[in-house]
């Protein structure tokens, strides 16, 4: 029942919020309590994994409330619950129309949980679609000056993503001789021809490529991330985008291994292009939010490379990168949001000297330094562990794209140093620096995320321990030789190492 609780508690919380009087301080408290209750439940599930839950819903069309947790979904459930809690914490106390805001955040969370917990492709698709509405509204109502354009672009791209996913799921149903059975267990053992797999994989790549996003499907991302309110940007980048990686892992590698193996060289190339494109664009940005957005695009490129390589090590890298990037990008947006709230701008040329101990934002900038170091893959932080696994795991399969990603990782340091140097150092303008210092309440989400990024760096099991046993069987190649083992996706780790 804890699985159902994980799925439904945001719905219960969102409904309860609407009963409270408008503007009540309890709205935020209740939203936070809901998110924390979900996080606590997910942690309990980690200690005692619950059995799969199957409830019949619309059996005629193959829709069942099929919920379960495995090594791939558990870390994402935890990440989703954590980022949601941090999103609530990072929301200003005086948030306007707070009931609707938190209600939509919790609705997004419900969609996330539904997607991660689903053991049925149709249920996954429904939950996936559920996310689109609240996130679009969050951007459209509370976004920046260009929120309307951002929301429309976000909606358009993600509607295409949803349609592509729907087509892919229906394709599974129609083409699979088993009929309308969308359970993951059935999909993993389909008898689709290679050509049929190619068609479905194309749709899957389109759907999740938009969600991640990857070049050239990223058109919605920089604008949306720069216009979304800070907490929403944290939620979108830290948790929602990870659905793309999860989808590729689940639908691409697990369900369509043969087609994936055939296309993987191209996928790796797209990953490398995304990485270098994201990093170079990040260097050119004059707005911190857009810089972080392009940085995210670059890091998604690493993920795609590791997915394409699909070695046991690279797949561990995928899970590590999902978690590390989720934490780091949410932290970066949180800090950029804090700076923007205080200074009134996220434009890099307008900011300088924020490290000033008396009038700047030294604490925020201190955390920013750690976050940028983590994003740049500096050892001792979660980003290093994830990138090391990605590059080491991908090298044997695709050395040239891996090299390109390594170069783009170097560029990460360039824009990190550039951002920190321009914003942190230099002269703090007295005429503009008329803002209050950050309170501990405002710092709290950033502190929690920073602590986890550091713990992930010195205790990498936090990033890989959950999924090691579940990613190894999905590997399509061995880690030490370019041997395609797609025909035997269930190969055990011991066999692979032998």
């Amino acid at each position: 029942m804890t699985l159902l609780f994980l799925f439904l508690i945001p719905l219960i919380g969102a409904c309860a919020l609407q009963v409270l009087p408008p503007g009540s301080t309890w709205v935020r408290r209740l939203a936070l309590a809901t998110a924390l209750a979900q996080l606590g439940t997910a942690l309990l599930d980690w200690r005692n994994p619950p059995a799969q839950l199957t409830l019949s819903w619309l059996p005629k069309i193959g829709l069942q409330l099929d919920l379960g947790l495995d090594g791939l979904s558990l870390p994402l459930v935890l990440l989703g619950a954590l980022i949601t809690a941090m999103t609530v914490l990072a929301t200003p106390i005086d948030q306007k129309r707070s009931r609707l805001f938190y209600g939509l955040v919790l609705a997004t969370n419900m969609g996330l949980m539904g997607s991660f917990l689903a053991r049925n492709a149709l249920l996954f698709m429904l939950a996936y679609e559920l996310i689109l509405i609240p996130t679009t509204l969050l951007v459209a109502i509370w976004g920046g000056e260009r929120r309307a354009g951002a929301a429309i672009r976000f909606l358009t791209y993600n509607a295409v993503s949803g349609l592509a996913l729907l087509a892919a799921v229906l394709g599974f149903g129609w083409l699979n001789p088993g009929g309308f059975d969308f359970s993951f267990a059935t999909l993993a053992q389909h008898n689709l021809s290679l050509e049929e797999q190619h068609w479905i994989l194309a749709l899957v790549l389109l759907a999740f490529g938009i969600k991640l996003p990857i070049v050239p499907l990223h058109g919605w991302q920089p604008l949306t991330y720069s216009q979304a309110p800070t907490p929403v940007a944290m939620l979108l980048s830290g948790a929602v985008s990870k659905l793309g990686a999860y989808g590729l892992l689940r639908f691409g590698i697990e369900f369509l291994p043969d087609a994936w193996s055939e296309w993987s060289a191209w996928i790796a190339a797209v990953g490398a292009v995304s990485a270098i494109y994201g990093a170079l664009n990040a260097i050119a940005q004059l707005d911190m939010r857009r810089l972080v957005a392009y940085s995210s695009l670059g890091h998604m490129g690493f993920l795609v490379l590791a997915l394409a390589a699909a070695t046991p090590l690279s797949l561990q890298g995928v899970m590590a990168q999902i978690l590390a990037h989720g934490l780091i990008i949410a932290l970066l947006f949180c800090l950029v949001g804090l700076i923007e709230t205080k200074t009134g701008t996220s434009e890099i040329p307008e900011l300088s000297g924020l490290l000033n101990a008396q009038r700047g934002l030294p604490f925020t900038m201190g955390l920013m330094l750690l976050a940028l170091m983590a994003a740049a893959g500096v050892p001792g932080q979660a980003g290093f562990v994830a990138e090391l696994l990605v590059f080491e795991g991908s090298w044997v399969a695709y050395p040239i794209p891996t090299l390109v990603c390594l170069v783009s990782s170097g560029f990460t340091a360039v824009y990190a140093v550039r951002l920190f140097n321009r914003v942190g150092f230099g002269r703090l303008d007295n005429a503009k620096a008329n803002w209050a210092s950050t309170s501990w309440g405002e710092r709290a989400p950033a502190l929690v995320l920073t602590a986890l990024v550091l713990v992930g760096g010195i205790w990498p099991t936090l990033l890989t321990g959950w999924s090691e046993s579940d990613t190894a069987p999905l590997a399509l190649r061995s880690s030490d030789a370019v041997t395609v083992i797609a025909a035997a996706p269930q190969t055990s780790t011991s066999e692979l190492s032998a």
Partner: protein
Amino acid sequence: MTTTTAPERATAPLIPPSTHRYADVIHRLEAGGSMLPDTPENLKQIIGIYKAYAVPMDFYWRDLLYIAEKVFLNPLPAFKYFISKEYLDRPNSYAGDQSQLRIWRGTDKAHPELLEFMEKGEAGKMPKLLHHLWHDRVNMEFAEACMQAMLWHQGMGGRFNDYLESDAYKANADRAIKAYFKRNPLMLGLYKLFPEMLLEQVRQMSYYANLGLFWEVMAPVFFEMSDIYDEGGFKGVPDAMDFLVNGIFAVAGRPIYHHVYIGDECFEIIPKSEGFNWLYEAALPYVEAVFYRTSPFRGTKSYNAQAGQVPADQADFHYGILYADVFPVGSAGIPPTLLMQDMLHFLPPYLKEIYKEHRRGEEDELIQLGITFQRSMYNVTSAVIQALRCALLYPLDDTDPKHLQANRAFFEAQMDRFLRPEARLPDVQTQDYR
């Protein structure tokens, strides 16, 4: 001491308005005003900071004289900040019953707030050594930095610096050195080998004495200004400036000397009879060295001399408090962070209230205090400019246009020094600069 009110500006009809970038400031100076705008808050800020400055200054001048006259050439002067009781109780020459020339109304003793702070500090009552090691004390390093600025720049007018190279000075210093090290053959041997080394140290000691004697005047001036303000005596910033101008003239001729006490004997390294006076040999060089010039390598801001960020000519240096970027780096030019910390202990309540109401309140008190100090130093510099104009040129109410034009040229030349972008003169014109 009584104050005189500056005459009302009478120049407007006689000469055309200035076209200088700081024309407003120049017209204000011509009207007998200060570079600092005359607002009630400016008055409150500068008087409040004078009071907070005067208390540590009461220690600075005593300890500077103690070092110059008693510590002298001690090769390991680890305890030079542990001022002797004799110097702590040394009567001020210009205030109190025992003063040689009573000009100001204060007492001749060390200020009670200073004595209390020396005993308790921030950490509470504990042995003096622990206060020192914990840095819970008056920052004499600030005073020494000011002295070093004067020593290093030299050549800022007057005869004092030239005298330090004279044979008479060298002979006096030689006697003192030999007397000080008469039981120390090692140091005497070193002196024989490197005669300039100890001589240069003695010159530095002479600047200790110079600055000590300068501040001996200024401390009671600032105390009295604070008292007058508390009694409702000053009506505006020009009143405060006029008080300083009058004070400058009252003590302008007081002697600057350097006596050293070795055993029971007094060595007059710079005798009073040389006729060095307070205004030309101490006050003006001090203002030039500390307010305008100092050196670029203080504090946390770094300059690249090879990239031309430091002028080749020392006279072009502009790192003093009038240019200091107190805000971003916390220190520049002279190390005002040390002084700010000293002043923080003695802020009058009304100044604390102002700081609480603005910016980050108590969190960034040091920055607000530093900017107040900058304002107050613009007022002191205004007093010096007016005193120089008074001494060298014409009265403000002169009716001869040529004379007024000469005054104008003088004021414009002074304002030219603030045309460089680092100058804080435009900033202090508004109250938003905090």
